[in-house]
């Protein structure tokens, strides 16, 4: 099946039904490996001690919080430019998942910061721009809930999403542009990662597991949103029939 065929909501439902058991199995398998690596294989860091285990949650959550908004931005283009039938379904389904991972990133960062920095929170550029991302997620979710017509809500949310996308490079480069308490990039950087392989492997294992979880939840949430729109359409038909 070509990817473009999935543009049809009915075909997407068929795809979701077939893919879901495989996605769930892959996610469970990936978490079994990731958690084993993170909790039992990874050594304590020579400076952080066992608190390095928080990084195996914090870093994937941070990546997925940004990935979610990136996905919504591409979907927003699909809504505004190509009027793709599944674009705002994809964007709406991604928002709560991205918000949850952004919250988890901030919470675990705070739990790591207290013993390592001596504070739960500091208003530096990286932390503040990440908090802005969470607030934008909540704003987009509120916008979708406040406009009854999904088409109008999708277009308004798409504009807000594209404006908010400016926060993504700010989050990424904040540690280079400003003097922050948050450490600079240490995984993806010119000259290679500064992290030892014994920590990097569990980190990637957990990142793969969390990414599979995101994809699985997103496909499931898109399926739910398509069904919700069908219910809405059928209720409108029912109401019209009763009026007529």
């Amino acid at each position, binding site marked *: 099946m070509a990817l473009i065929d999935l543009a049809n909501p009915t075909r997407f*439902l068929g795809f979701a039904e077939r893919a879901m058991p495989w996605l769930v199995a892959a996610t469970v398998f990936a978490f079994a490996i990731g958690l084993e690596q993170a909790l039992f294989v990874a050594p304590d860091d020579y400076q952080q001690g066992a608190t390095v285990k928080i990084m195996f949650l914090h870093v994937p959550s941070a990546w997925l919080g940004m990935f979610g908004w990136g996905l919504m931005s591409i979907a927003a283009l699909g809504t505004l430019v190509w009027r793709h039938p599944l674009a705002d379904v994809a964007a709406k389904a991604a928002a709560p998942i991205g918000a949850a991972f952004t919250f988890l990133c901030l919470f675990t960062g705070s739990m790591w910061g207290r013993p390592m920095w001596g504070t739960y929170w500091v208003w530096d550029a990286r932390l503040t721009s990440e908090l802005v991302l969470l607030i934008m997620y909540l704003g987009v979710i509120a916008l979708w809930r406040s406009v009854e017509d999904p088409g109008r809500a999708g277009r308004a949310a798409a504009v807000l999403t594209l404006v908010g996308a400016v926060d993504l490079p700010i989050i990424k480069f904040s540690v280079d542009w400003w003097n922050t308490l948050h450490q600079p990039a240490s995984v993806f950087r010119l000259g290679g990662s500064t992290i030892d392989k014994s920590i990097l492997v569990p980190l990637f294992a957990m990142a793969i597991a969390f990414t599979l979880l995101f994809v699985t939840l997103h496909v499931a*949430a898109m*399926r739910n949103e398509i*069904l919700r729109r069908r219910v809405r359409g059928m209720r409108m038909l029912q109401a019209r029939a009763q009026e007529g």
Partner: protein
Amino acid sequence: MNLGPHAVFIVASYAAAFVVVAGLIAWVYFDFRAQRRALGDLEAHGVTRRSSDIKEPA
């Protein structure tokens, strides 16, 4: 597994991750059941989609 002097922060982080992930899974699962039930109720009342000639997945 020795979590050292900062065990409470590590346990709190993993507990929060568990709660957030469980919450997301519960949201998706119960929402799916609610939409399927609503569709079933409408179909039981004889309401069909305009595009009901399209073959639906089982």
